[in-house]
Protein backbone atom coordinates (compact mmCIF):
# COMPACT_ATOMS: atom_id res chain seq x y z
CA UNK A 1 0.00 0.00 0.00
CA UNK A 2 2.78 2.39 0.98
CA UNK A 3 4.66 1.42 -2.15
CA UNK A 4 1.63 2.18 -4.31
CA UNK A 5 1.27 5.55 -2.60
CA UNK A 6 4.97 6.25 -2.98
CA UNK A 7 5.32 5.22 -6.62
CA UNK A 8 1.82 5.84 -7.92
CA UNK A 9 0.94 9.15 -6.27
CA UNK A 10 3.98 10.90 -4.78
CA UNK A 11 6.82 9.98 -7.10
CA UNK A 12 5.41 11.69 -10.23
CA UNK A 13 5.35 15.01 -8.39
CA UNK A 14 9.12 14.80 -7.94
CA UNK A 15 9.21 16.26 -11.46
CA UNK A 16 9.21 20.04 -11.41
CA UNK A 17 6.94 20.41 -14.46
CA UNK A 18 4.28 18.26 -12.79
CA UNK A 19 4.56 20.18 -9.52
CA UNK A 20 4.10 23.49 -11.35
CA UNK A 21 1.15 22.07 -13.27
CA UNK A 22 -0.38 20.85 -10.00
CA UNK A 23 0.15 24.20 -8.25
CA UNK A 24 -1.44 26.11 -11.15
CA UNK A 25 -4.44 23.80 -11.36
CA UNK A 26 -4.97 23.82 -7.58
CA UNK A 27 -4.90 27.64 -7.59
CA UNK A 28 -7.55 27.71 -10.32
CA UNK A 29 -9.56 25.04 -8.50
CA UNK A 30 -10.07 27.35 -5.54
CA UNK A 31 -11.86 30.08 -7.49
CA UNK A 32 -13.10 28.79 -10.86
CA UNK A 33 -15.67 26.27 -9.47
CA UNK A 34 -17.47 28.85 -7.25
CA UNK A 35 -17.83 31.08 -10.32
CA UNK A 36 -19.12 28.04 -12.22
CA UNK A 37 -21.73 27.43 -9.51
CA UNK A 38 -23.03 30.98 -10.00
CA UNK A 39 -22.97 30.56 -13.79
CA UNK A 40 -25.17 27.46 -13.55
CA UNK A 41 -27.50 29.06 -10.98
CA UNK A 42 -27.89 32.11 -13.21
CA UNK A 43 -28.47 29.82 -16.23
CA UNK A 44 -25.41 31.27 -17.95
CA UNK A 45 -23.52 28.08 -18.81
CA UNK A 46 -23.62 29.03 -22.48
CA UNK A 47 -22.06 32.40 -21.64
CA UNK A 48 -19.01 30.59 -20.25
CA UNK A 49 -18.71 28.71 -23.52
CA UNK A 50 -18.90 31.95 -25.48
CA UNK A 51 -16.22 33.55 -23.32
CA UNK A 52 -13.73 30.72 -23.66
CA UNK A 53 -13.99 30.90 -27.45
CA UNK A 54 -14.10 34.67 -27.32
CA UNK A 55 -10.65 35.10 -25.78
CA UNK A 56 -8.93 33.30 -28.69
CA UNK A 57 -8.60 36.33 -31.03
CA UNK A 58 -7.13 38.39 -28.16
CA UNK A 59 -4.71 35.62 -27.21
CA UNK A 60 -3.64 35.30 -30.86
CA UNK A 61 -3.11 39.07 -31.20
CA UNK A 62 -1.14 39.05 -27.92
CA UNK A 63 1.02 36.21 -29.23
CA UNK A 64 1.64 38.03 -32.53
CA UNK A 65 2.58 41.30 -30.79
CA UNK A 66 4.59 39.88 -27.90
CA UNK A 67 5.96 36.61 -29.22
CA UNK A 68 4.72 33.74 -27.08
CA UNK A 69 4.84 35.85 -23.90
CA UNK A 70 2.23 34.61 -21.44
CA UNK A 71 1.67 38.18 -20.24
CA UNK A 72 0.94 39.53 -23.74
CA UNK A 73 -1.37 36.63 -24.46
CA UNK A 74 -3.03 37.07 -21.07
CA UNK A 75 -3.68 40.79 -21.58
CA UNK A 76 -4.92 40.13 -25.14
CA UNK A 77 -7.25 37.39 -23.89
CA UNK A 78 -8.51 39.63 -21.07
CA UNK A 79 -9.36 42.50 -23.43
CA UNK A 80 -11.05 40.17 -25.94
CA UNK A 81 -12.96 38.40 -23.14
CA UNK A 82 -14.28 41.69 -21.74
CA UNK A 83 -15.38 42.78 -25.22
CA UNK A 84 -17.18 39.46 -25.76
CA UNK A 85 -18.79 39.70 -22.30
CA UNK A 86 -20.09 43.14 -23.23
CA UNK A 87 -21.35 41.80 -26.57
CA UNK A 88 -23.07 38.91 -24.78
CA UNK A 89 -24.81 41.37 -22.43
CA UNK A 90 -25.98 43.47 -25.38
CA UNK A 91 -27.30 40.37 -27.18
CA UNK A 92 -29.14 39.24 -24.04
CA UNK A 93 -30.75 42.66 -23.73
CA UNK A 94 -31.59 42.93 -27.44
CA UNK A 95 -33.14 39.44 -27.60
CA UNK A 96 -34.94 39.73 -24.25
CA UNK A 97 -33.25 36.63 -22.84
CA UNK A 98 -33.50 34.44 -25.97
CA UNK A 99 -29.82 34.83 -26.64
CA UNK A 100 -28.62 31.33 -27.61
CA UNK A 101 -28.45 31.85 -31.39
CA UNK A 102 -26.74 35.23 -30.94
CA UNK A 103 -24.23 33.63 -28.58
CA UNK A 104 -23.53 30.86 -31.07
CA UNK A 105 -22.84 33.52 -33.71
CA UNK A 106 -20.40 35.36 -31.42
CA UNK A 107 -18.36 32.35 -30.45
CA UNK A 108 -18.17 30.89 -33.96
CA UNK A 109 -17.04 34.27 -35.26
CA UNK A 110 -14.48 34.64 -32.46
CA UNK A 111 -13.16 31.14 -33.13
CA UNK A 112 -12.85 31.84 -36.85
CA UNK A 113 -11.02 35.15 -36.27
CA UNK A 114 -8.72 33.55 -33.69
CA UNK A 115 -7.82 30.56 -35.86
CA UNK A 116 -7.28 32.80 -38.90
CA UNK A 117 -4.93 35.08 -36.95
CA UNK A 118 -3.05 32.17 -35.40
CA UNK A 119 -2.51 30.30 -38.66
CA UNK A 120 -1.26 33.41 -40.47
CA UNK A 121 1.52 33.91 -37.90
CA UNK A 122 4.45 31.57 -38.41
CA UNK A 123 5.76 29.91 -35.27
CA UNK A 124 2.44 30.18 -33.46
CA UNK A 125 1.26 26.75 -32.35
CA UNK A 126 -2.52 26.66 -32.87
CA UNK A 127 -2.84 23.37 -31.02
CA UNK A 128 -1.21 24.97 -27.97
CA UNK A 129 -3.63 27.91 -28.07
CA UNK A 130 -6.70 25.72 -28.52
CA UNK A 131 -5.87 22.88 -26.16
CA UNK A 132 -3.22 24.34 -23.85
CA UNK A 133 -0.30 22.45 -22.39
CA UNK A 134 -0.59 21.97 -18.70
CA UNK A 135 2.80 20.29 -18.49
CA UNK A 136 4.45 23.30 -20.10
CA UNK A 137 3.34 25.65 -17.31
CA UNK A 138 6.52 27.60 -16.55
CA UNK A 139 7.22 29.98 -13.70
CA UNK A 140 5.70 32.94 -15.53
CA UNK A 141 2.51 31.01 -16.37
CA UNK A 142 2.30 29.80 -12.77
CA UNK A 143 2.64 33.38 -11.51
CA UNK A 144 -0.14 34.47 -13.87
CA UNK A 145 -2.44 31.63 -12.79
CA UNK A 146 -1.76 32.18 -9.08
CA UNK A 147 -2.12 35.96 -9.40
CA UNK A 148 -5.38 35.71 -11.29
CA UNK A 149 -6.77 33.14 -8.86
CA UNK A 150 -5.89 35.29 -5.84
CA UNK A 151 -7.38 38.42 -7.40
CA UNK A 152 -10.53 36.57 -8.46
CA UNK A 153 -10.92 35.02 -5.00
CA UNK A 154 -10.78 38.43 -3.30
CA UNK A 155 -13.11 39.84 -5.95
CA UNK A 156 -15.64 37.09 -5.43
CA UNK A 157 -15.56 37.57 -1.66
CA UNK A 158 -16.17 41.29 -2.21
CA UNK A 159 -19.21 40.87 -4.45
CA UNK A 160 -20.57 37.66 -2.86
CA UNK A 161 -23.61 39.05 -1.04
CA UNK A 162 -24.71 41.32 -3.87
CA UNK A 163 -24.21 38.56 -6.41
CA UNK A 164 -26.31 36.12 -4.39
CA UNK A 165 -29.19 38.60 -4.09
CA UNK A 166 -28.94 39.64 -7.74
CA UNK A 167 -29.07 35.97 -8.80
CA UNK A 168 -31.95 35.20 -6.45
CA UNK A 169 -34.21 38.23 -6.85
CA UNK A 170 -32.86 41.00 -9.09
CA UNK A 171 -36.06 43.08 -8.78
CA UNK A 172 -35.82 43.18 -4.98
CA UNK A 173 -32.17 44.28 -5.18
CA UNK A 174 -33.08 47.11 -7.55
CA UNK A 175 -35.99 48.17 -5.32
CA UNK A 176 -33.47 48.38 -2.46
CA UNK A 177 -31.26 50.68 -4.52
CA UNK A 178 -28.73 47.86 -4.84
CA UNK A 179 -27.60 48.56 -8.44
CA UNK A 180 -27.88 45.07 -9.92
CA UNK A 181 -25.74 45.91 -12.95
CA UNK A 182 -22.61 46.44 -10.85
CA UNK A 183 -22.72 42.93 -9.37
CA UNK A 184 -23.35 41.38 -12.77
CA UNK A 185 -20.50 43.31 -14.39
CA UNK A 186 -18.12 42.44 -11.54
CA UNK A 187 -19.07 38.78 -11.82
CA UNK A 188 -18.52 38.71 -15.59
CA UNK A 189 -15.11 40.36 -15.15
CA UNK A 190 -14.13 37.62 -12.68
CA UNK A 191 -15.29 34.90 -15.08
CA UNK A 192 -13.22 36.44 -17.89
CA UNK A 193 -10.21 36.61 -15.53
CA UNK A 194 -10.53 32.93 -14.68
CA UNK A 195 -10.97 31.89 -18.31
CA UNK A 196 -7.75 33.76 -19.12
CA UNK A 197 -6.08 32.13 -16.10
CA UNK A 198 -7.02 28.70 -17.35
CA UNK A 199 -6.15 28.97 -21.05
CA UNK A 200 -2.40 28.37 -20.74
CA UNK A 201 -3.00 25.05 -18.99
CA UNK A 202 -6.24 23.91 -20.57
CA UNK A 203 -6.39 25.87 -23.82
CA UNK A 204 -9.06 28.24 -25.04
CA UNK A 205 -11.37 25.34 -25.95
CA UNK A 206 -11.36 23.78 -22.49
CA UNK A 207 -10.48 26.62 -20.13
CA UNK A 208 -13.93 26.65 -18.53
CA UNK A 209 -13.84 22.89 -17.94
CA UNK A 210 -12.48 23.23 -14.43
CA UNK A 211 -15.11 25.92 -13.83
CA UNK A 212 -18.20 24.16 -15.16
CA UNK A 213 -17.85 20.39 -14.66
CA UNK A 214 -17.30 20.54 -10.86
CA UNK A 215 -20.08 23.16 -10.62
CA UNK A 216 -22.72 21.09 -12.41
CA UNK A 217 -21.66 18.00 -10.45
CA UNK A 218 -22.01 19.85 -7.14
CA UNK A 219 -25.74 20.48 -7.73
CA UNK A 220 -26.30 16.79 -7.05
CA UNK A 221 -24.74 16.92 -3.59
CA UNK A 222 -26.22 19.90 -1.74
CA UNK A 223 -29.22 22.24 -1.60
CA UNK A 224 -27.14 24.91 0.11
CA UNK A 225 -25.06 27.44 -1.83
CA UNK A 226 -22.14 27.03 0.58
CA UNK A 227 -22.43 23.25 0.21
CA UNK A 228 -22.43 23.41 -3.60
CA UNK A 229 -19.44 25.75 -3.64
CA UNK A 230 -17.51 23.54 -1.18
CA UNK A 231 -18.26 20.35 -3.12
CA UNK A 232 -17.36 22.00 -6.45
CA UNK A 233 -13.98 23.16 -5.11
CA UNK A 234 -13.30 19.69 -3.68
CA UNK A 235 -14.15 18.01 -7.01
CA UNK A 236 -11.87 20.43 -8.88
CA UNK A 237 -8.98 19.83 -6.46
CA UNK A 238 -9.37 16.04 -6.71
CA UNK A 239 -9.75 16.19 -10.52
CA UNK A 240 -6.58 18.25 -10.82
CA UNK A 241 -4.52 15.76 -8.76
CA UNK A 242 -6.08 12.63 -10.24
CA UNK A 243 -6.04 14.00 -13.79
CA UNK A 244 -2.33 14.82 -13.67
CA UNK A 245 -1.54 11.37 -12.25
CA UNK A 246 -3.68 9.73 -14.95
CA UNK A 247 -1.86 11.79 -17.56
CA UNK A 248 1.54 10.77 -16.16
CA UNK A 249 0.85 7.05 -15.83
CA UNK A 250 -1.30 6.54 -18.97
CA UNK A 251 0.70 8.96 -21.12
CA UNK A 252 -2.38 11.09 -21.90
CA UNK A 253 -2.50 14.85 -22.56
CA UNK A 254 -2.81 16.46 -19.12
CA UNK A 255 -5.58 19.02 -19.73
CA UNK A 256 -8.07 16.55 -21.18
CA UNK A 257 -7.13 14.01 -18.50
CA UNK A 258 -8.09 16.50 -15.76
CA UNK A 259 -11.40 17.21 -17.44
CA UNK A 260 -12.03 13.50 -18.03
CA UNK A 261 -11.75 12.90 -14.29
CA UNK A 262 -14.03 15.89 -13.55
CA UNK A 263 -16.46 14.57 -16.17
CA UNK A 264 -16.45 11.11 -14.58
CA UNK A 265 -17.24 12.69 -11.20
CA UNK A 266 -20.11 14.61 -12.81
CA UNK A 267 -21.59 11.44 -14.34
CA UNK A 268 -21.25 9.62 -11.00
CA UNK A 269 -22.94 12.59 -9.28
CA UNK A 270 -25.75 12.63 -11.83
CA UNK A 271 -26.36 8.93 -11.20
CA UNK A 272 -25.76 8.63 -7.47
CA UNK A 273 -25.87 12.06 -5.78
CA UNK A 274 -28.52 12.71 -3.13
CA UNK A 275 -30.07 15.72 -4.95
CA UNK A 276 -31.74 15.82 -8.38
CA UNK A 277 -29.94 12.63 -9.49
CA UNK A 278 -31.35 9.53 -11.15
CA UNK A 279 -31.07 7.77 -7.78
CA UNK A 280 -33.02 10.55 -6.05
CA UNK A 281 -35.69 10.47 -8.76
CA UNK A 282 -36.04 6.71 -8.49
CA UNK A 283 -36.79 7.16 -4.77
CA UNK A 284 -39.59 9.61 -5.61
CA UNK A 285 -40.94 7.56 -8.55
CA UNK A 286 -40.01 3.93 -7.74
Amino acid sequence: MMTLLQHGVLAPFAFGFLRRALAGCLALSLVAPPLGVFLTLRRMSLTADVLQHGILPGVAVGAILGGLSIWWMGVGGLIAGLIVALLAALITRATNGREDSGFAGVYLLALAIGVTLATRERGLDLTHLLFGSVLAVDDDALRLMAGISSLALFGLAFIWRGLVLESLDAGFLRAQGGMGGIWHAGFMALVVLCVVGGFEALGTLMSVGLMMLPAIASRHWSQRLSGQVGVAVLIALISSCAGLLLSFHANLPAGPAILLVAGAVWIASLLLGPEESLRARSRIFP
Partner: protein
Amino acid sequence: MIRLDHVSLRQGALLAVEDVSVTFEPGLVAVAGPNGAGKTTLLRAIAGLHPVASGSITGAGLSERIGFLPQSGEVDRRFPITVREFVGFGAWRRVGPQRRLPEAEYARIAASLTRLGIADLADRPIARLSAGQFQRLMFARLLMQDADIFLLDEPFTAVDSETEDALLDIIATWGDQGRTVIAVLHDQDLIQEAFPNTLLLARRMIAYGPSFDVLSAENRRLIRHAA
Protein backbone atom coordinates in the same frame (compact mmCIF):
# COMPACT_ATOMS: atom_id res chain seq x y z
CA MET B 1 -48.43 60.23 0.90
CA ILE B 2 -47.68 59.21 -2.70
CA ARG B 3 -48.71 61.52 -5.51
CA LEU B 4 -49.03 60.45 -9.16
CA ASP B 5 -49.33 63.40 -11.51
CA HIS B 6 -50.45 62.63 -15.08
CA VAL B 7 -48.40 59.44 -15.12
CA SER B 8 -48.06 57.48 -18.35
CA LEU B 9 -46.03 54.26 -18.65
CA ARG B 10 -44.87 52.29 -21.67
CA GLN B 11 -44.31 48.59 -22.22
CA GLY B 12 -42.16 48.60 -25.32
CA ALA B 13 -44.12 50.45 -27.99
CA LEU B 14 -47.45 50.07 -26.14
CA LEU B 15 -48.90 52.54 -23.67
CA ALA B 16 -49.54 50.39 -20.59
CA VAL B 17 -50.81 53.20 -18.33
CA GLU B 18 -52.16 56.51 -19.58
CA ASP B 19 -52.45 59.82 -17.76
CA VAL B 20 -53.15 58.60 -14.21
CA SER B 21 -53.34 61.24 -11.49
CA VAL B 22 -54.06 60.12 -7.95
CA THR B 23 -52.86 60.71 -4.38
CA PHE B 24 -52.46 57.74 -2.02
CA GLU B 25 -52.84 58.63 1.65
CA PRO B 26 -51.46 56.34 4.41
CA GLY B 27 -53.66 53.26 4.84
CA LEU B 28 -54.72 50.34 2.69
CA VAL B 29 -55.39 50.79 -1.03
CA ALA B 30 -56.27 48.11 -3.55
CA VAL B 31 -55.44 48.38 -7.25
CA ALA B 32 -57.99 46.45 -9.29
CA GLY B 33 -58.74 45.97 -12.96
CA PRO B 34 -58.75 43.39 -15.75
CA ASN B 35 -55.67 41.58 -17.04
CA GLY B 36 -53.47 43.93 -19.01
CA ALA B 37 -54.88 47.01 -17.24
CA GLY B 38 -51.38 48.17 -16.22
CA LYS B 39 -51.68 47.34 -12.50
CA THR B 40 -48.30 45.62 -12.12
CA THR B 41 -46.58 48.18 -14.34
CA LEU B 42 -47.97 51.00 -12.20
CA LEU B 43 -46.83 49.29 -8.99
CA ARG B 44 -43.34 48.71 -10.41
CA ALA B 45 -43.15 52.36 -11.47
CA ILE B 46 -43.99 53.49 -7.92
CA ALA B 47 -41.24 51.13 -6.68
CA GLY B 48 -38.80 52.75 -9.11
CA LEU B 49 -38.46 49.57 -11.18
CA HIS B 50 -40.18 50.87 -14.31
CA PRO B 51 -39.39 54.15 -16.08
CA VAL B 52 -42.05 56.85 -16.16
CA ALA B 53 -42.75 57.88 -19.77
CA SER B 54 -44.40 61.15 -18.76
CA GLY B 55 -45.76 62.79 -15.61
CA SER B 56 -44.24 62.31 -12.16
CA ILE B 57 -44.42 60.13 -9.07
CA THR B 58 -43.47 61.84 -5.82
CA GLY B 59 -43.70 61.07 -2.13
CA ALA B 60 -41.72 61.06 1.09
CA GLY B 61 -39.58 57.95 1.49
CA LEU B 62 -40.30 56.72 -2.02
CA SER B 63 -36.65 56.06 -2.75
CA GLU B 64 -35.69 54.55 0.60
CA ARG B 65 -38.55 53.23 2.68
CA ILE B 66 -40.29 50.89 0.22
CA GLY B 67 -41.08 47.24 0.75
CA PHE B 68 -41.89 45.66 -2.61
CA LEU B 69 -43.51 42.24 -2.97
CA PRO B 70 -43.17 41.05 -6.58
CA GLN B 71 -45.22 38.24 -8.07
CA SER B 72 -43.61 35.04 -6.83
CA GLY B 73 -42.46 34.11 -10.36
CA GLU B 74 -39.83 36.86 -10.22
CA VAL B 75 -37.87 35.04 -7.51
CA ASP B 76 -35.69 32.07 -8.44
CA ARG B 77 -37.28 29.52 -6.12
CA ARG B 78 -34.69 26.87 -7.00
CA PHE B 79 -31.82 29.00 -5.71
CA PRO B 80 -29.95 27.01 -3.02
CA ILE B 81 -30.58 29.23 -0.02
CA THR B 82 -32.32 28.67 3.31
CA VAL B 83 -35.37 30.45 4.65
CA ARG B 84 -33.24 32.27 7.27
CA GLU B 85 -30.72 33.47 4.68
CA PHE B 86 -33.50 34.63 2.35
CA VAL B 87 -35.25 36.66 5.03
CA GLY B 88 -31.89 38.13 6.08
CA PHE B 89 -31.74 40.01 2.78
CA GLY B 90 -34.59 42.15 4.10
CA ALA B 91 -31.89 43.94 6.13
CA TRP B 92 -30.02 44.97 2.96
CA ARG B 93 -30.51 48.73 3.45
CA ARG B 94 -29.35 48.60 7.08
CA VAL B 95 -26.46 46.19 6.60
CA GLY B 96 -25.30 46.82 3.04
CA PRO B 97 -23.57 44.44 0.68
CA GLN B 98 -20.34 43.77 2.54
CA ARG B 99 -21.02 43.49 6.26
CA ARG B 100 -21.99 40.23 7.93
CA LEU B 101 -25.42 40.29 9.55
CA PRO B 102 -25.11 41.54 13.16
CA GLU B 103 -26.73 39.59 16.00
CA ALA B 104 -29.57 42.10 16.24
CA GLU B 105 -30.57 41.28 12.66
CA TYR B 106 -30.68 37.56 13.46
CA ALA B 107 -33.09 38.40 16.29
CA ARG B 108 -35.23 40.35 13.80
CA ILE B 109 -35.19 37.40 11.41
CA ALA B 110 -36.35 35.06 14.18
CA ALA B 111 -39.12 37.49 15.16
CA SER B 112 -40.28 37.85 11.53
CA LEU B 113 -40.36 34.09 11.00
CA THR B 114 -42.27 33.60 14.26
CA ARG B 115 -44.79 36.32 13.28
CA LEU B 116 -45.42 34.47 9.99
CA GLY B 117 -45.61 31.06 11.69
CA ILE B 118 -42.65 29.57 9.84
CA ALA B 119 -39.97 29.66 12.56
CA ASP B 120 -39.62 25.88 12.34
CA LEU B 121 -38.67 26.17 8.65
CA ALA B 122 -35.69 28.50 9.22
CA ASP B 123 -33.07 26.02 7.99
CA ARG B 124 -35.13 24.58 5.13
CA PRO B 125 -34.06 25.36 1.51
CA ILE B 126 -36.60 27.69 -0.12
CA ALA B 127 -36.97 25.16 -2.96
CA ARG B 128 -38.73 22.86 -0.51
CA LEU B 129 -41.47 25.31 0.52
CA SER B 130 -45.11 25.04 -0.54
CA ALA B 131 -46.75 28.01 -2.31
CA GLY B 132 -48.31 29.19 0.95
CA GLN B 133 -45.09 28.81 2.93
CA PHE B 134 -43.22 30.70 0.22
CA GLN B 135 -45.63 33.62 0.39
CA ARG B 136 -45.23 33.71 4.19
CA LEU B 137 -41.47 33.80 3.56
CA MET B 138 -41.87 36.80 1.26
CA PHE B 139 -43.88 38.60 3.94
CA ALA B 140 -41.22 37.75 6.54
CA ARG B 141 -38.67 39.54 4.33
CA LEU B 142 -41.06 42.51 4.10
CA LEU B 143 -41.29 42.62 7.89
CA MET B 144 -37.48 42.71 8.04
CA GLN B 145 -37.50 45.82 5.82
CA ASP B 146 -39.58 47.76 8.32
CA ALA B 147 -40.77 50.02 5.48
CA ASP B 148 -43.23 52.94 5.50
CA ILE B 149 -44.66 52.04 2.08
CA PHE B 150 -45.54 48.50 1.04
CA LEU B 151 -46.25 47.66 -2.61
CA LEU B 152 -47.76 44.19 -2.96
CA ASP B 153 -48.29 42.53 -6.35
CA GLU B 154 -51.00 39.86 -6.04
CA PRO B 155 -50.01 38.86 -2.51
CA PHE B 156 -52.63 36.11 -2.11
CA THR B 157 -52.06 34.16 -5.32
CA ALA B 158 -52.04 30.37 -4.78
CA VAL B 159 -52.32 30.57 -0.97
CA ASP B 160 -54.87 28.78 1.20
CA SER B 161 -57.43 30.63 3.30
CA GLU B 162 -55.45 30.14 6.51
CA THR B 163 -52.37 31.76 4.98
CA GLU B 164 -54.51 34.51 3.44
CA ASP B 165 -55.94 35.33 6.89
CA ALA B 166 -52.45 35.43 8.43
CA LEU B 167 -51.15 37.76 5.71
CA LEU B 168 -54.25 39.98 5.88
CA ASP B 169 -53.69 40.33 9.61
CA ILE B 170 -50.19 41.67 8.99
CA ILE B 171 -51.42 44.05 6.28
CA ALA B 172 -54.13 45.36 8.62
CA THR B 173 -51.49 45.96 11.30
CA TRP B 174 -49.42 48.02 8.83
CA GLY B 175 -52.53 50.08 8.04
CA ASP B 176 -53.23 50.63 11.76
CA GLN B 177 -49.63 51.81 12.20
CA GLY B 178 -50.18 54.56 9.60
CA ARG B 179 -48.10 52.93 6.87
CA THR B 180 -49.15 52.97 3.21
CA VAL B 181 -50.04 49.64 1.62
CA ILE B 182 -50.87 49.48 -2.10
CA ALA B 183 -51.86 46.00 -3.26
CA VAL B 184 -52.77 44.65 -6.71
CA LEU B 185 -55.75 42.35 -6.14
CA HIS B 186 -58.37 40.49 -8.17
CA ASP B 187 -60.80 39.26 -5.51
CA GLN B 188 -63.45 42.00 -5.27
CA ASP B 189 -65.07 40.52 -2.16
CA LEU B 190 -61.71 40.55 -0.42
CA ILE B 191 -61.06 44.15 -1.51
CA GLN B 192 -64.39 45.37 -0.13
CA GLU B 193 -63.82 43.46 3.10
CA ALA B 194 -60.23 44.46 3.86
CA PHE B 195 -59.22 47.51 1.77
CA PRO B 196 -61.04 50.79 2.46
CA ASN B 197 -59.92 52.44 -0.81
CA THR B 198 -59.52 51.17 -4.35
CA LEU B 199 -57.97 52.45 -7.58
CA LEU B 200 -59.80 50.91 -10.54
CA LEU B 201 -57.55 50.79 -13.58
CA ALA B 202 -58.06 49.84 -17.21
CA ARG B 203 -54.95 51.47 -18.67
CA ARG B 204 -56.62 54.76 -17.71
CA MET B 205 -57.96 55.46 -14.23
CA ILE B 206 -61.64 54.46 -14.13
CA ALA B 207 -62.25 55.48 -10.51
CA TYR B 208 -60.54 56.05 -7.17
CA GLY B 209 -62.15 56.23 -3.75
CA PRO B 210 -63.97 54.10 -1.17
CA SER B 211 -63.89 50.48 -2.37
CA PHE B 212 -67.66 49.96 -2.12
CA ASP B 213 -68.33 52.92 -4.43
CA VAL B 214 -65.48 52.22 -6.84
CA LEU B 215 -66.49 48.59 -7.34
CA SER B 216 -70.06 49.53 -8.26
CA ALA B 217 -71.96 47.59 -10.91
CA GLU B 218 -71.65 50.54 -13.29
CA ASN B 219 -67.83 50.70 -12.94
CA ARG B 220 -67.53 46.94 -13.33
CA ARG B 221 -69.52 47.17 -16.56
CA LEU B 222 -67.15 49.93 -17.73
CA ILE B 223 -64.19 47.70 -16.92
CA ARG B 224 -65.62 44.76 -18.85
CA HIS B 225 -66.16 47.07 -21.79
CA ALA B 226 -62.60 48.43 -21.55
CA ALA B 227 -61.16 44.90 -21.32
